């Protein structure tokens, strides 16, 4: 292959990032300046060639064995500088500039000489790489001064050029440009934009229409569409301050914080689950989310916002807000059973370091974790200097949200309760202690010996670092404690349950627990030492800032109390008005969230691989004002929103020319038409259909609830399908920008999913409800107002009406009998496919299968996968499966879960048997309480086998298995029973209830119900053996195959039509639903100008 074309191809095909950036920058430069000269001046070309092409090859294939950094000079050769290469090693000069044929390096990589082959052991370079190196030597082996040594920099290696990099410069004090005859600018921001546009002989777009502007403002500020009334009120306000009034009104709207918090939550990778296999829910995490919403709504000064999150405990002690804010330092992923605590703790600290540099410094430091940054003047040492601020961290779950007074009151009340219950609790302790000890031993011995030693070491003897590790490891011990009672069985368990029951009678006197929160403190006043991995010889790394900005270690005041004060020092440094990064980074983010792109388009990368600012003076001017105006985000919003720049239309009459000069609209010659973000799409749909609930705050809810998306649970491994396909952030790492993907899977979800169907139906119902007449044109108009915030044209009205008529005619052709309500299915976490969603008082509250002669008459096994959303407040049982009328004296059986009013204990798996030989005349139904506790929101396999005439403990066996945790063994409980015959019922088999309306209903998900006519041995249970056997008499799986209501065995019978029939939908209504769905799918709905 000829060398040059290869070079070109590789440039286009390979790492490309520099090329891409320079290419687009050049594109801009070329087109803007109207120059046609080549930008590849030789010098620049050689340098770029070296940095992009040659240096990576040397780094990747040579420096491991031939560099100072690796401390390896095999054959006496180092390849980390040109002198190293030209001096060469034992065999002589490796490179003769200009002469590849005389260069041993080239000979070696060509593999022509059997005795000289590099890289060794058959790891021959790709032909392309060989060609590149040859080309480089041929061109004179140019090694630019500034390229530095390969992959290594010392403090002295921060060059003057590095220091001149724009983002490290102090904030400038630009003056607002004066432009003669400027009638366009509305505030001081605009002349900056106009100057640039004029320079390129471009003109800004005319102002957006009022309707478009209002819609833009609403989505931008509160993330929701304006109501028709809001549009009309805005239209009616002809005063000059109309826009300003709306802006102020929206900034004061509590929904503002709900929208803007999402951006911050993306940045700090906020989630409510652990993110590993078990992905446990973090029930307290939401308090941080509400803190962020509050901070935006209250316009908390950004410097304070930063400080609270990094060092709330050090700057504000017990202040509940500051304590909640430190949740920022708790959003890392956590693996509950990782026995390698050293690695896990390292990962946690790395995660905090990475996130902090991304979020607050706008610099990606990750590269420097393993080596000096190859492009930016960031030393490996800088990574650990930053990490050293966090090295003393101790995650804390025991700190509560309470004032000292509240805490005192609480303690007082608790002491009184403790006094009254001392004896009971002592009895409980006697039973539990040995079990706890055993559980602890079990957990501890799974660790490597060294870690076991740490855990057993008295706290006072541990070093700070040892204490951190021990505490982290000990979480695995308390994890076992939490499950203690659940895993016990036999007489101890029964005694315990009774004792807890008794203890419960004192609950009224027990103070309400203080609110819990995910927080941090330091491990103590002394920090554990930080060293660079594998370079401990360099000594301890003191906390410090980027060497380029401040070479000295950070000044940390003497520790106060039990904290090192390190994080406080970091917060103070970051929020100094002179810090060149903090304010620029945040102002730029805010710009991005208004325009879709920042003045620096790489908003978390202000380094050399990022873009440079399109309007550097404006960026500094805004940053300076931001600081001067008290770091107020709302003032910054106003500045931007009230500008002529922001208020431009999406269409510019001179677009044809502007597109050529500035295809990416970096100069802002018009507004960008932008797709709504995933949360906005979901929220806008729910708002438009009138379903959105306005409640704010509180623990996260399931995404099936019509709450704003910010309030839905963020479970890392189980996400809202809508967020998944519309590029929601994954919340594993800091995300500063969202992708905008267009895929057929989005379209399928939006046009076919039951969720989308339901929203369209709700929208149609709303239109009907709000209609003053049955005039379709009026309803179309209303739909346009609700969805698009504008009046439709006559042509649009006509088009809609034609569609409605055509659809109605299509529907009426196939209209049949009224149908059963559609099956409502949902995915159960840790299970595949669909489960039945059973909800009391819904169209799907239970599923009924007519009685059939194969159903159990004596022995049986009933099994299912269940996830409870709630238990009843009273004594009602959440029935999983039954064949029973529920009436005393009627035979049958019923498997369910006890409610809060249970005489046993709530959330316990229970089997009720009602047979001939009634248990006692007073209580003719025998309840068998398994003692197995089911947590809400967790998926379980549950099963029970009944050997009816077996009166020993082998008679009834319960099984339960937590599906979210593989390591959790299946729990088994055996019980005696007295009902030994006559359970045969003529009642239908009911899933999620009994053969009686409105009582003992299930609430949650049920999947794969299987009934067998024998007590199955454990090895044949559904949890391990899916499918059917000759004993199976019914197996309902709720899948499309063989049909959601069909029995997979074709023996037990199909599920009868659901209990409540769907209202008959006439052709006209059906056509309206179609119309509404199209509207909700349309680009005008999903995009904002």
């Amino acid at each position: 292959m000829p060398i040059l074309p290869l070079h070109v191809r590789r440039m286009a095909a390979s790492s490309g990032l520099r090329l891409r950036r320079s290419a687009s920058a050049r594109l801009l430069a070329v087109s803007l300046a109207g120059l046609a000269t080549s930008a590849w001046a030789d010098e620049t070309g050689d340098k770029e060639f070296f940095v992009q092409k040659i240096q990576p090859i040397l780094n990747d294939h040579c420096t491991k064995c031939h560099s100072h950094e690796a401390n390896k000079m095999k054959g006496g050769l180092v390849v980390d500088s040109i002198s190293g290469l030209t001096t060469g090693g034992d065999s002589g000069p490796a490179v003769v500039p200009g002469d590849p044929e005389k260069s041993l390096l080239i000979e070696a990589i060509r593999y022509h000489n059997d005795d000289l082959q590099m890289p060794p052991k058959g790891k021959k370079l790709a032909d392309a790489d060989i060609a590149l190196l040859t080309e480089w030597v041929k061109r004179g082996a140019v090694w630019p001064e500034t390229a530095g040594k390969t992959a290594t920099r010392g403090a002295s290696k921060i060059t003057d050029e590095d220091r001149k990099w724009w983002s490290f410069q102090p904030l400038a004090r630009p003056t607002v440009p004066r432009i003669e005859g400027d009638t366009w600018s509305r505030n001081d921001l605009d002349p900056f934009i106009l100057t640039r546009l004029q320079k390129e002989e471009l003109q800004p777009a005319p102002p957006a229409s009022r309707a478009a502007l209002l819609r833009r403002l609403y989505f931008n500020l509160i993330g929701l569409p304006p109501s028709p009334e809001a549009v009309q009120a805005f239209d009616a306000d002809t005063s000059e301050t109309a826009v300003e009034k709306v802006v102020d009104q929206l900034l004061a709207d509590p929904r503002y914080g709900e929208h803007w918090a999402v951006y911050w939550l993306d940045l700090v990778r906020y989630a409510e689950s652990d993110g590993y296999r078990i992905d446990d829910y973090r029930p307290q995490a939401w308090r941080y989310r509400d803190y962020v919403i509050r901070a935006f709504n209250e316009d908390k000064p950004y410097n304070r916002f930063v400080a609270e999150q990094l060092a709330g405990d050090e700057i504000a002690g017990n202040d509940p807000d500051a304590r909640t804010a430190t949740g920022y330092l708790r959003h890392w992923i956590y693996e509950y059973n990782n026995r390698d605590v050293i690695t896990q703790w390292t990962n946690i600290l790395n995660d905090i370091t990475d996130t902090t540099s991304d979020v607050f410094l706008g610099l990606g430091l990750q590269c420097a974790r393993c080596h000096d940054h190859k492009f930016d003047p960031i030393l490996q040492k800088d990574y650990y200097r930053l990490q050293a601020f966090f090295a003393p961290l101790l995650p804390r779950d025991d700190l509560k949200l309470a004032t000292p007074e509240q805490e005192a009151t609480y303690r007082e009340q608790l002491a009184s309760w403790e006094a009254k219950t001392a004896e009971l609790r002592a009895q409980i302790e006697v039973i539990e202690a040995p079990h706890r000890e055993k559980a602890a031993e079990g957990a501890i011995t799974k660790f490597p010996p060294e870690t076991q030693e740490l855990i057993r070491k008295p706290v006072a003897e541990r070093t700070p670092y040892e204490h951190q590790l021990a505490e982290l490891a000990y979480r695995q011990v308390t994890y076992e404690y939490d499950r203690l009672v659940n895993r016990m069985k036999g007489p101890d368990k029964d005694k315990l349950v009774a004792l807890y029951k008794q203890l419960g009678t004192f609950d009224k006197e027990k103070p309400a627990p203080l609110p819990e929160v995910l927080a941090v403190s330091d491990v103590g006043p002394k920090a554990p030492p930080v060293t660079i991995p594998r370079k401990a010889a360099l000594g301890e790394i003191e906390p410090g800032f980027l060497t380029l900005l401040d070479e000295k270690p950070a000044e940390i005041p003497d520790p106060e109390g039990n904290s090192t004060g390190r994080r406080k020092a970091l917060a103070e440094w970051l929020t100094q008005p002179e810090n060149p990064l903090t304010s620029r980074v945040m102002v730029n983010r805010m710009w991005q969230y208004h325009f879709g792109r920042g003045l620096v388009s790489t908003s978390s990368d202000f380094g050399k691989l990022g873009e440079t600012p399109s309007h550097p003076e404006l960026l500094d001017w805004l940053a300076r004002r931001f600081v001067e105006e008290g770091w107020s985000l709302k003032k910054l919003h106003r500045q931007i929103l009230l500008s002529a720049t922001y208020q431009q239309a999406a269409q510019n009459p001179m677009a044809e020319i502007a597109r050529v000069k500035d295809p990416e609209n970096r100069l802002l010659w018009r507004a960008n038409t932008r797709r709504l973000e995933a949360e906005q799409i979901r929220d806008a749909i729910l708002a438009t259909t009138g379903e959105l609930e306005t409640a704010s705050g509180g623990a996260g809810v399931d995404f099936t609830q019509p709450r704003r998306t910010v309030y839905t649970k963020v479970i890392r491994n189980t996400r809202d399908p809508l967020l998944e396909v519309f590029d929601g952030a994954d919340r594993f790492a800091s995300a500063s920008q969202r992708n905008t993907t267009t895929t057929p899977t989005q379209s399928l979800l939006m046009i076919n999913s039951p969720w989308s169907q339901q929203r369209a139906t709700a929208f149609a119902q709303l239109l009907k409800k709000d209609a003053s007449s049955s005039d379709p044109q009026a309803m179309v108009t209303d739909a346009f107002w609700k969805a698009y915030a504008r009046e439709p044209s006559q042509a649009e009205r006509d088009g809609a009406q034609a569609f409605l008529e055509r659809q109605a005619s299509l529907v009426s052709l196939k209209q049949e009998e009224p149908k059963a309500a559609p099956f409502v299915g949902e995915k159960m976490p840790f299970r595949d496919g669909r489960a039945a969603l059973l909800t009391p008082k819904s169209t799907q509250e239970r599923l009924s299968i007519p009685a059939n002669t194969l159903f159990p008459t004596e022995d049986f096994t009933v099994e299912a996968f269940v996830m409870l959303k709630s238990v009843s407040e009273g004594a009602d049982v959440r029935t999983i499966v039954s064949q029973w009328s529920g009436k005393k004296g009627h035979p049958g059986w019923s498997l369910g879960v006890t409610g809060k009013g249970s005489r046993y204990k709530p959330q316990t798996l229970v089997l009720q048997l009602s047979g001939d030989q009634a248990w006692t005349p007073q209580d003719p139904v025998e309840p068998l309480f398994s003692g197995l506790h089911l947590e809400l929101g967790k998926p379980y396999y549950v099963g029970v086998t009944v050997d009816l005439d077996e009166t020993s403990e082998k008679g009834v066996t319960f099984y339960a298995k937590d599906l979210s945790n593989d390591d959790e063994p299946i729990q088994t409980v055996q019980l005696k029973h007295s009902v030994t015959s006559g359970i045969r019922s003529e009642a239908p088999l009911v899933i999620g209830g009994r053969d009686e309306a409105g009582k003992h209903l299930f609430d949650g998900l049920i999947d794969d119900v299987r009934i067998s006519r024998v007590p199955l041995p454990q090895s044949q249970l559904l949890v391990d053996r899916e499918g059917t056997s000759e004993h199976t008499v019914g197996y309902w799986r709720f899948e499309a195959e063989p049909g959601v209501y069909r029995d997979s065995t074709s023996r037990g019978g199909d599920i009868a039509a659901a209990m409540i029939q769907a209202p008959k939908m006439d052709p006209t209504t059906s056509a309206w639903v179609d119309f509404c769905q199209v509207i909700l799918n349309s680009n005008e709905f999903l995009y904002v100008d």
Partner: protein
Amino acid sequence: MPDDSIFNPCGRQEKVFNRRDFLARAGGGFGALALAHLLQGTAAGNTLLEEKRSLNSPLLPRKPHFAPKAKSVIFLFMEGGPSQMDLLDPKPKLNELAGQPLPDSFGKVITAMGEARSPLLASKRSWKQHGESGLWMSDWLPHTASCADDLAVIRSCVADGINHSAGVCQMNTGSILAGRPSLGSWVSYGLGTENQNLPGFVVIQDNASTVVNGPRNWGSGFMPAVYQGTRIQGSSEPIPHLNTPDGITQEQHRGKLDFLNQLNREHAATRMQSELEARIASYELAFRMQAEAPEAVDLTKETDATRSLYGLDEKETAPFGTMCLLGRRLVERGVRFVQLYHGSGSKWDAHDNIEQNHSKLCKQMDQPVAGLLKDLKSRGLLDSTLVIWGGEFGRTPMSEKGNGRDHNPTGFTMWMAGGGVKGGQTIGSTDELGLHAVEDRLHVHDLHATILWLMGLDNMDLVYNYKGRPERPTLNEGDAYRKIAGL
């Protein structure tokens, strides 16, 4: 995400629609086209053609970095970690030392369940050499053994995660920590896919438990969602929401799409952004997918011979056999990357009673896998299809609970076949007990680099720029093991 290959097949992701508008509509477009020509080294006409086609899909096929050996991949993921010393890596010494603790010479070992000190557990298998190449396989793999000469058995695989979550995450994404794109996403990003009416990266699993970590295993991480894997099922609705809802006729559905198209065209007319065009096209694409996907998963047209080759006529082998057959059908139809999970939900995780556990799982898997290899071969597809077999790690020579084995990422076995792989070879080795890989250690990064290389992609040249970092599929590490192709 629009296609951004105009300038660079693997470059930074940007809002390229503007640039494309620019190319497509530039009045005085000469300079721009010339520049595009310069940068890409292709004829300007092709660029425009590509431009036009890419409006329909960001997943159109792209040129690899060099001539590929494999066009598509079927990754048979044995989830939970199969035991190397009971399947493909015989260790006579292990049986000799059975019952004794691991000799001190093996150094410090951290295992998931703390079994470092437990006695060594003998393998109960009988071993034989198979094929002309004489590859060793245990009696648990009688069918796979009949394909011995097609396999390159890698006995020296190394990973970093000691638990399933980290292990499965790394085998998919290269990192034990969540958040990175999966290998299938990287391949989709680098190569696109051949059939635009089917997803390019497809995942199927064999039972109703969730694969460890769930869908993020096939997620696209920081890359656009368009590159993520699509879970399909061999049912009447293979892709989520593929079917029009119950009671909606095709005419009604078409009517909705037509009306939507009409509204969207009016909306796009004054805005001139190709992202809007792409969204219009995405509904058409979805419509075509609705037509094509059900056919792709419809096995009724397969002959009885084919069905029994995959074991569809036996209860134990039918589920995974069905998946393997689906895998072949998808590859045949141009799907780029297929991942088939066997033992979803860590079923291979034999902490206790490995005999029972592995007997059952091998029985389920062995015949379908061999059937797949034979079927691909007879259809001439094996040459272009890389088949990969393995789990997230292997198992320890030490026992657990007396008759099981703990997790072992420090030395385990995988195999590859087809797609340019030279069959009948054994690569690397573990120590005498099968605990650590010693010769030709291939870390997950090396394995990924090798897979990419076979597909014509250079792991260091496949770059996605994210937050200022040039991200690569193998985290800047890993070398392709070229000897696997006999080089």
